[in-house]
């Protein structure tokens, strides 16, 4: 009832991939998790909220794609072999791939909220949310924006050291 009428109304489960530490394989795991779920016949989306270092587009070979709009908002980019995984990342919104997104917290928070409310995800079994390292603006905003929806939980990634 909370999620009805929103762009996340058709999403069954939302999984956050977190770490705290950088470079441990969050984006790699998010990508592999999405591909594995897709192989298992699930409808999958990935939301990449790493605004400073978006890695998912390259990992799925769609770094040159762009985002279009429809009546319900932004259309996620279709990726994967059968174009059946939906992806949204700031990587698609940069004029040049090497452009630095040098934003302070408030501006990052605004875009993350938009990614949650304005992307037309459609019907998905799983939405995987890849995050940057840390416990700051992106994480607080993503959880706040996603909480009214079916937030399943978090997978935490680390290395042994």
């Amino acid at each position, binding site marked *: 009832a909370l999620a009805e009428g929103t762009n996340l109304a058709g999403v069954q489960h939302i999984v956050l991939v977190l770490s705290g530490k950088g470079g441990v394989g969050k984006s790699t795991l998010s990508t592999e998790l999405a591909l594995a779920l897709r192989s298992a016949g699930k409808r999958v989306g990935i939301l990449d909220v790493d605004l400073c270092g978006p890695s998912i587009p390259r990992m799925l070979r769609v770094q040159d794609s762009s985002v279009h709009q429809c009546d319900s908002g932004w259309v996620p980019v279709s990726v994967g072999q059968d174009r059946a995984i939906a992806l949204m990342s700031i990587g698609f919104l940069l004029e040049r791939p090497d452009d630095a997104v040098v934003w302070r917290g408030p501006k990052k928070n*605004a875009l993350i909220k938009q990614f949650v409310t304005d992307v037309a995800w459609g019907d998905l079994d799983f939405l995987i949310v890849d995050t940057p390292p840390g416990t700051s603006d992106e994480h607080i905003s993503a959880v706040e924006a996603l909480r009214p929806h079916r937030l399943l939980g978090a997978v935490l990634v680390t290395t042994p050291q």
Partner: protein
Amino acid sequence: LAAHLSLSLAECPGTGSAQAGRAAACQGCPNQGLCAAGAAGPDPAEAAELRARLRAVRHTVLVLSGKGGVGKSTFSALLAHGLAADETKQVALLDIDICGPSIPKMMGLEGEQVHQSGSGWSPVYVEENLGVMSVGFLLSSPDDAVIWRGPKKNGLIKQFLRDVDWGEVDYLIVDTPPGTSDEHLSIVQYLSATHIDGAVIVTTPQEVSLQDVRKEINFCRKVKLPIIGVVENMSGFVCPKCKNESQIFPPTTGGAEKMCQNLSVSLLGKVPLDPQIGNSCDRGQSFLAEAPESPATLSYRNIIQRIQEYCEQQHLQEEKIM
């Protein structure tokens, strides 16, 4: 109809700047109203305070990446140890990674607390000539999460610069978190009160790292921060048993070398993977001291020397101008 989205991706001028709320980049930012109504510019009293505190710092080096987990903190710690090997030099290591402070553990200072004196906060000393400051020293437990939004992080970074009694310092090394956000904008803004010699940018050979590092290089150019050069970590692994070399993180797009050529920045050196590095870091020991014969130690030492030479040359050039 397909509409191409374009975002105003110009950077935030800074909530304390004269342009706060008024720059083109402020359009659409939820903070715009607050900024436009607020500060007319950086507080001159604050700027004067920072200048006074940092007057006795001769060289400042920022260690940046863009990408996480490439070895910034490891490099910062070893740079500090390397420079402090000269007992006549006073070295300061400032860790501004507020969410994930690695420096206390790497320097063997976990559990240490910050003491206050009349002249400010005391850094925690590893050696007589090597002082360290990190949010890690302010936590009651090492597992406490610091879940702060940008403005609060900025406030602590300012305090680190304003309230820590560093004394006379030959080298101030600043370790940063990954990214190009509040911490990075703030440190550059606050350190404009003193002189930053430049940034050392750390990467690993893979394209997924390089794509973030290119952004960091662009960030440095945007904020007019000189780039001393790039360090490529985890560059090859030599098996201690069979001596064969493997590329654990293959440079599929030419590695740091190609990137540096393309972007006209200096490649300071490549450091191979050595499991002893992580081991020493976990135990708070200097890898350079524990494994003096490792090819990684040789690489690190060469890189540290090049950084020293760069800083000394800057100094000479400035003296000439004056």
